[in-house]
């Protein structure tokens, strides 16, 4: 309790400073995992190795970078997995195997994402439904909608123009040979979200309302509006992740399943405080890379499935414990 209060008092200061006082341990965990991957598979340092890894991690990283907005504001967004599914299934229906339709289908999906985020935000802000329940309801609704829209089975393919973002590699780049478009998307989205969270007033307001909503409100923070923006950013990041995932692997009806929890896990590994008031975009992206690195490492080592589950669970707990340990120390000093 005491720690929490102290931590709370400290958090806005850290945000105002813009930079966290110590290097977040998630970067060490990530570095250690990358070294372990390289040791188990020396080919990983070749461009095909690490570029494939980054390409694969990009959707989750973008999702985590969006989710952190909601977490910092003191909520959860469980609907992101279903937004991914809806994006992929909806796009395949709207595209109807027509490669020329991509240019308007993508904005339509972003509009859908925007609507989902606004509804989430309105329900949480004005109807006072806890975000866990509100977004859980949204998740169930959207999964149902995706199912109804597709009758349970995808109705079309995703043409190459749509899959460009998630699948294509730009060839012939010096030093790195090729650059996945998905990685470019991650860099652009990551920079935007970093700037918005750590360099603007919005970021400070988000931290303030997550830290102590009552105090924030009394000091004139437009609580509702800031919350709605957080949910909108999360939903839009989910649409982006959906476009990349659909591009990477093609159409399927359960593509988004489990991504909401992975995104929240990535944020926690990145040191976010689940009750709000603390969290960073780069650390959440690093958390997502860490999570993907764990999966990749276990693929490379080639352990049997049950062993892999055990190891994966243990690594996850260790990563979260490390993050919490740092937070407590940072809060105490």
């Amino acid at each position, binding site marked *: 309790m005491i720690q929490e209060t102290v931590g709370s008092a400290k958090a806005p200061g850290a945000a105002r400073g813009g930079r966290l006082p110590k290097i977040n341990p998630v970067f060490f965990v990530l570095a250690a995992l990358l070294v372990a991957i390289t040791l188990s*598979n020396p*080919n*990983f340092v070749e461009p*095909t*190795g690490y570029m*494939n890894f980054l390409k*694969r991690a990009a959707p989750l990283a973008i999702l985590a970078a969006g989710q952190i907005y909601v977490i910092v504001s003191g909520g959860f967004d469980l609907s992101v997995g279903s937004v991914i599914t809806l994006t992929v299934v909806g796009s395949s229906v709207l595209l109807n195997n027509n490669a020329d339709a991509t240019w308007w289908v993508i904005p339509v999906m972003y509009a859908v994402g925007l609507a989902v985020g606004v509804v989430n935000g309105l329900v949480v802000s004005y109807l006072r439904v806890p975000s866990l329940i509100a977004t859980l309801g949204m998740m169930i609704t959207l999964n149902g909608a995706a199912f109804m829209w597709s*009758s*349970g*089975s*995808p*109705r*079309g*393919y995703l043409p190459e123009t749509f899959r460009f973002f998630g*699948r294509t*590699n730009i060839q012939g780049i010096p030093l790195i040979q090729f650059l996945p478009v998905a990685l470019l998307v991650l860099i652009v989205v990551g920079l935007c979200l970093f700037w918005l969270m750590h360099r603007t007033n919005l970021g400070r307001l988000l931290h303030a309302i997550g830290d102590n909503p009552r105090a924030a409100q009394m000091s004139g923070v437009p609580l509702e509006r800031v919350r709605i923006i957080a949910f909108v950013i999360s939903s839009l990041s989910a649409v982006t992740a959906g476009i990349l*995932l659909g591009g*990477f*692997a*093609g*159409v*399927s*009806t*359960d*593509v988004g*399943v489990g991504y909401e929890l992975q995104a929240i896990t990535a944020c926690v590994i990145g040191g976010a405080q689940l009750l709000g008031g603390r969290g960073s975009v780069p650390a959440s992206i690093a958390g997502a890379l860490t999570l993907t690195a764990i*999966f*990749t490492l276990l*693929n*490379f080592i*080639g352990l*049997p*499935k*049950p*062993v892999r589950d*055990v190891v994966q669970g*243990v690594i996850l707990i260790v990563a979260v414990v490390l993050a919490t340990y740092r937070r407590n120390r940072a809060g105490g000093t």
Partner: protein
Amino acid sequence: MKKLLTAALSAALFASTAQAQQLNFDDPAEFARQREMLTAKANGPEGEPWVQYYGDQMADTAQYKKEGPYTICFSNAGVNNAWRVTGWTNMQAEVKLHPEIKELIHVDAEGSDDKQISDIDDLINGGKCSVLIVSPNTTAALTPAVEKACAKLPVIVFDRGVNTKCPVTFIHPVGGYGFGIQAGEFVAATAPAGAHVLMLRIVPGVDVLETRASAAKRIFKEKGLNVIGEEFTEGDNAKTKSIVEDYLQRGSIDAIWMDAGATAVAALEAFEDSGLPLPIITGEDQQDFLMKWKAEGFKAIAPTYPTYQWRTPIIAAVKVLKGEAVPGPEWVMPQPSITAETLDQYVNDKMPPLHHAMCGCEKLPDYPAAWGGQ
């Protein structure tokens, strides 16, 4: 710490293998029986495998004879994957061919044993059903519910089975070993000895999938192929593609064996995106795979777990209610593979990507619109 971890891990491993042995997904007698059946000649009209059957044992149904019109009740395990969506569409269309059927009452258990057990209870107590069709969610859990239903009315089971002989008949294709044999033998015949085979499976522990894998492994071992890994994809395209990419970074893959074809195209894309030639692959009858196969011409086979088996329970139900004999207590139907020679008959770019081509539905009412085709 390390020792402790190793001990825990080996205990977990041991437990999982012990369980597998207990349920016996690797039965040489059943393997041999299904292998023989694959090449045997089925009874019934040529070209209509949904009414064909192996063997000549029939179930007498005189006691169930009843005047029409009939109400057919169907307790469905779920419509939760593309295979079941195609199948369920087949069944609805088949009903339209039988004017003596007044109504088809469909209850969807949404993949839950509990819900299906109470669904069956409700259907029996509702008193409207002339006959009950059950596609069980899991074998053991649904057995008591089916036994209870048998006491009240004729029951027809299809797809997954139950541990009781009380239903009039149990309709199913040759089986999981048969699927594994068709795919395994193709790889064994096409790949050179010592070739690297990656086995991609959906999930462990499901009987019809375990038997597919055990049959294929038996064949790979006989032919001296090198199984470089057995991975679980959970039917997820992104995961499948990632797994294959990782294997390609570590070494070469000559052939990919799959226990179900939904993610076959994702596996192939991993080769394309790594700039490698496409491997020998075993898929299934999903249109996206067949289209890719037709376009790229790689070495492939598509064994099927035919969705036309969803037509048969309706046909059987009407026969039973008319007192006509049906194959029983088991109605085993053919389970064809799609090969390079027969590919052209099944590939159809007007159908949706996960439409299962072996549906026997081309002449049914409302084809292709009801199946999502154009």
